């Protein structure tokens, strides 16, 4: 039965390129240019899928993206769930099966690549049917940058399937010539297989291009910014609602015409055509001429078009006026249609019935303009009585609609409105555009349509087989139930019934459901309006949206100049913002705890080295730099002498700790400040904010220099000796190089700025060299420190060492609700300065409370226990009935080599007044006792600082 339903000639398929594919285990043949749907129909396969809720057989209803029924799961070349068979191109090796309701995501990794392209144009034309092509031609000839995007594999839109003529020749000739001319324009980009699925603010449109399984990227997302947009998105044919309107073999009339003309496929042998308007007659004629027996044209109108009637009479096709199809028979395929005379509009139908045997029922309830993109861009729509559907009605975007989307259905009018829209768009974009000549087309006079929502007299009075949304299996009965439950607007009914929420976003069911609701409510369709149209117009995979941003490129990985060394030494890394920082350097066989204890011990007893290049650095210059820093830090920086360094806390105006770091005065009018690794960008933005908007009188410039410097912390009692060895020119004595001072000089032959600062309580130096020399100096220091057992250490050891000294980490021990006083750092808050950021807030009643959460130390009674960070602190050993009063939580917790036990920092209500008390922390299912301490656990006297 291979291609039994394929016509001997005609169509736009490539008969020289047969392709073999597999549908549900059947080996079938189609041709290049076929969709899966057309190839299935050519092989007589009508039943494709099973409906999602009721398990009813479903076939192919449409020939494009509006298909509500024929969903398939593609298994090869790559598993893809839920694709309409009408949009899948057949190719060799395609393997697909009909969906039993729901699709299935692939379990293996997708080997394909996906990417993104940003582009700009003067005129974006969406849709390459007659209107879109005419628009593109007018615009392109002006020299404007034009993009034409169309979802189909080739341009032409309705002209591909209608078999009509333009200028006395096949319309497809005009399509070919127009496309060829457009392709010649250097500033025109043609994007077939590209669906514009989203229309956002300021003429930003996003499209998905299917580039093919063998392309360098399988799908590409286009992010387009257009000066002007022409929406030539066409219209979708509307089905009709009657009993059993969902059987395989029931097809939109225009789609059937497309299958005959474009794909040379007969969708059946014996057809009934049921219509409310003229357009289905063309389908009847084309199908008849292709060899389909048209048993009856059933027209809901009392008076039918004399033009079409005469064409039918010539062919012996019988027309039943004032008649409707009220129900159907058949299981896997329609076998008969049941006709009933409808009587005049508004009257009850008579009961005259006739059963007509057929294997195909074409339906046309009119046309719904595809206003989706127009509406996404917040354009309004109005109900057009003549076509019984919603059309665009004004937009704030630089956009215009043309062609069928405006409710114009005759090809000639579509061409003209397109050419005008293209000219107007190009002119609006500043180009001297002329109207492109449009080809002559002949069209019959159009007789008014009858708007029919639920066909009167349909077989089942309860409406349970009268489908409004086939994709959702939602029926007239569901709509009635929604209205009976009190819902009287389309948005509510949509949510109650799920109409319009399937993969097809209600392309065929949207206007229909509004009509049915209006009928049930007894109001006008125009009064109800539409539901909100949202992106995407057709489904888009997450892989396409992610594009290149997956795997290693998911987010930038920031590395320091010494990164490769850390990798070579087997460091494990911790993510700090986007930075990769060495976490710890395990020796073979070491777990994290062992490695960190070893690193801590090495630093406290000998010498260790850490890469601290990630700390943010900002150069502050200008005659008012000192005054500026006095305003942004809680302590006084203007009194700092050149050559000295001070630790500083920054608060936001609400008095909460925002960041911290060191301030180095490098010259009278120049400072270098450091920030936390994760906070650098925010601190710079915060400082610029105040400088540019409130303190505009201050003459200060800020420059981020974070990556100019590679920074090495050399820490431990032996650090002075190591530095002396590699930097013989430096005076490293305690007297010559005091704590919190800096010097410039050669370190390992590189000009460096060396600072004596410590974040561990140990004697320590921080060596800054330009990034380019970071690795060199690091390695020289490593080699020089070898006799002293120098040990590289990571962030975990740094955290333990600073916690032993009670130094908080902003962002770990603080969370935006902690003041300097809460941290016990009142010493860093100036009482002399008139003002600084946060000062006023310290006297707000809430900030001045004495029972705020304070940073304290905690020692678990079980010295082997390391409390989990985030653990709650409670008063009593028994939790009792909820709500259990919470006193605070653990912010940092480690095992200490020097203490020989676990210890923690925590914020606890009134914590400083509880020092010595025993509190409890629920760990697992039991509260464990902990002792509240001062937050400084080690070397309280600070004796180790000077080595």
């Amino acid at each position, binding site marked *: 039965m291979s291609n039994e339903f394929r016509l001997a000639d005609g169509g736009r398929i490539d008969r020289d390129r047969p392709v073999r594919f597999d549908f549900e285990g059947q080996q079938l043949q189609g041709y290049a240019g076929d969709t899966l749907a057309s190839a299935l129909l050519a092989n007589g396969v009508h039943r494709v899928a099973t409906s999602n809720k009721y398990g009813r057989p479903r076939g192919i209803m449409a020939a494009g993206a509006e298909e509500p029924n024929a969903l398939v799961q593609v298994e090869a070349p790559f598993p893809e769930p839920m694709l309409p068979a009408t949009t899948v191109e057949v190719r060799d090796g395609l393997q697909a099966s009909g969906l039993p309701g729901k699709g299935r995501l692939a379990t293996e990794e997708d080997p394909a690549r996906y990417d993104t392209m940003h582009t700009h144009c003067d005129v974006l034309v969406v849709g390459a049917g007659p209107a879109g092509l005419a628009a593109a031609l007018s615009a392109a000839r002006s020299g404007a940058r034009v993009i034409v995007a169309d979802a189909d594999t080739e341009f032409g839109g309705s002209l591909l399937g209608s078999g009509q003529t333009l200028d006395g020749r096949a319309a497809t000739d005009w399509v070919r010539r127009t496309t060829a001319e457009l392709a010649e324009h250097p500033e025109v980009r043609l994007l077939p297989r590209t669906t514009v699925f989203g229309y956002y603010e300021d003429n930003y449109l996003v499209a998905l291009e299917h580039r093919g399984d063998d392309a*360098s990227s399988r799908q590409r997302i286009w992010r387009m910014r257009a000066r002007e947009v022409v929406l030539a998105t066409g219209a979708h044919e509307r089905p009709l609602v009657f009993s059993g309107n969902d059987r395989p073999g029931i097809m939109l009339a225009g789609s059937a015409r497309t299958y005959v003309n474009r794909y040379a496929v007969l969708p059946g042998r014996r057809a009934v055509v049921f219509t409310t308007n003229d357009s289905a007659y063309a389908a009847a004629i084309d199908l008849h001429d292709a060899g389909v027996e048209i048993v009856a044209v059933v027209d809901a109108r009392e008076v039918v078009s004399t033009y079409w009637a005469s064409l039918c009479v010539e062919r012996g096709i019988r027309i039943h006026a004032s008649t409707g199809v009220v129900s159907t028979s058949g299981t896997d395929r329609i076998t008969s249609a049941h006709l009933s005379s409808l009587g005049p509009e508004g009257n009850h139908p008579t009961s005259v019935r006739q059963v007509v045997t057929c294997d195909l029922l074409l339906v046309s309830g009119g046309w719904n303009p595809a206003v989706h993109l127009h509406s996404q861009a917040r354009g309004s729509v109005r109900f057009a009585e003549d076509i019984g559907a919603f059309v665009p009605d004004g937009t704030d975007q630089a956009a215009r609609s043309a062609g069928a989307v405006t409710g114009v259905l005759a090809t000639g009018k579509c061409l003209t409105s397109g050419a005008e829209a293209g000219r107007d768009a190009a002119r609006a974009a500043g180009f001297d555009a002329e109207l492109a000549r449009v080809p002559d087309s002949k069209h019959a006079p159009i007789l008014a349509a009858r708007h029919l929502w639920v066909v009167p007299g349909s077989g089942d009075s309860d409406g349970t087989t009268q489908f409004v949304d086939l994709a959702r299996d939602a029926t007239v009965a569901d709509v009635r139930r929604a209205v009976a439950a009190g819902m009287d607007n389309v948005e509510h009914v949509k949510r109650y019934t799920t109409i319009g929420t399937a993969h097809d976003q209600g392309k065929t069911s949207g206007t229909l459901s509004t009509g049915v609701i209006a009928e049930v409510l007894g109001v006008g369709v125009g009064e109800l309006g539409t539901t909100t149209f949202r992106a995407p117009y057709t489904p888009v995979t997450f892989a396409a949206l992610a594009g290149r*941003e997956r795997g290693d490129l998911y987010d930038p990985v920031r590395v320091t100049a010494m990164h490769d060394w850390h990798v070579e030494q087997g460091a494990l890394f911790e993510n700090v913002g986007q930075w990769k920082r060495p976490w710890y350097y395990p020796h073979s066989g070491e777990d994290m705890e062992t490695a960190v204890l070893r690193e801590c011990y090495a630093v406290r007893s000998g010498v260790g080295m850490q890469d601290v290049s*990630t700390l943010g650095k900002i150069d502050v210059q200008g005659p008012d730099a000192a005054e500026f820093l006095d305003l942004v830090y809680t302590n006084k920086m203007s009194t700092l002498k050149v050559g000295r360094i001070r630790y500083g806390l920054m608060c936001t105006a609400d008095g909460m700790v925002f960041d911290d770091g060191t301030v180095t005065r490098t010259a009278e009018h120049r400072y270098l400040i450091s920030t936390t690794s994760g906070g650098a960008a925010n601190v710079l933005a915060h400082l610029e904010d105040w400088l540019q908007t409130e303190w505009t009188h201050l003459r200060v410039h800020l420059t981020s*220099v974070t990556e100019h410097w590679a920074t090495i912390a050399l820490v431990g009692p032996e650090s002075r000796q190591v530095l002396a060895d590699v930097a013989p020119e430096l005076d490293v004595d305690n007297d010559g190089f005091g704590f919190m001072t800096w010097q410039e000089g050669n370190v390992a032959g590189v000009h460096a700025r060396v600072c004596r600062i410590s974040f561990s309580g140990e004697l320590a130096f921080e060596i800054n060299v*330009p*990034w*380019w020399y970071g690795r060199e100096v690091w390695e020289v220091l490593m080699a020089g420190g070898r006799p002293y057992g120098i040990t590289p250490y990571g962030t975990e050891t740094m955290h333990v060492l600073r916690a032993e000294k009670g130094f908080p980490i902003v962002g770990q021990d603080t969370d935006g609700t902690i003041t300097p006083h809460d941290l016990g750092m009142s010493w860093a808050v100036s009482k002399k300065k008139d003002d600084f950021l946060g000062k006023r807030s310290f006297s707000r009643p809430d900030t001045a409370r004495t029972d705020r959460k304070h940073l304290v130390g905690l020692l678990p009674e079980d010295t082997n226990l390391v409390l989990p960070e985030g653990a709650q602190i409670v008063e009593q050993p028994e939790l009792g009935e909820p709500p259990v009063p919470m006193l605070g939580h653990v912010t940092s917790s480690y095992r200490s080599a020097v203490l020989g036990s676990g210890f923690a920092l925590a914020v606890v209500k009134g914590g400083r007044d509880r020092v010595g008390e025993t509190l409890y922390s629920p760990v697992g299912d039991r509260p464990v006792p902990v002792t509240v301490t001062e937050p400084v656990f080690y070397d309280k006297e600070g004796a180790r600082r000077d080595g």
Partner: protein
Amino acid sequence: MAEPYAESPLATYTDVLERSSVRGQLRIAEEPFLAQVTVRVDPKSPAAERVGTALGGMLPNQSGEVVLAGDLTVLWLGPDEWLVVGPEGRDRDVQERVTAALDGEHGAVVDVSANRTVLSVTGPRARDLLNKGCALDLHPRAFESNRCAQTMLARAGVILVRRDAEAPSFWLLVRSSFARYLADWLVDAAEEYRSGGGEP
């Protein structure tokens, strides 16, 4: 002591970048160690004029303007902010000249030579490659030669400079810590030109 060894942020990427170049289509390479000095001064002040003179050309005062002055390239970064880019080793000289020209007037001069590295992307495919991650309109009608912009390329901030001589040619100035990420991204995005399968 031997001369210290300097390593640019993409020193280990030379071969990778070379391999992702396509003859006659696309060339990606690091231009390491260029001197870079940030200059801040009130553009309307006499000091700004003196700074321009000292550099051998006026400071560009239009958004995104680039001025070439001998072997120096001066980029407009903001209404009172410029980046002077020059050959390796020129940083000290530029700083001294600008500082002298400021002559005590309020301004700022900061050596940022190692803060960013420079990637050059050259060839007929350069624009398409960049537009895979850059949302700016890089069409010659919108972004001419000797224009610059601070923007995003993929997820990294960059200063983008159009330097066309014969073929389209761009500089990407990227923070040193982001350089490898950006290089990896460029190599990945250039894959289709290497395999020859891509449409422009």
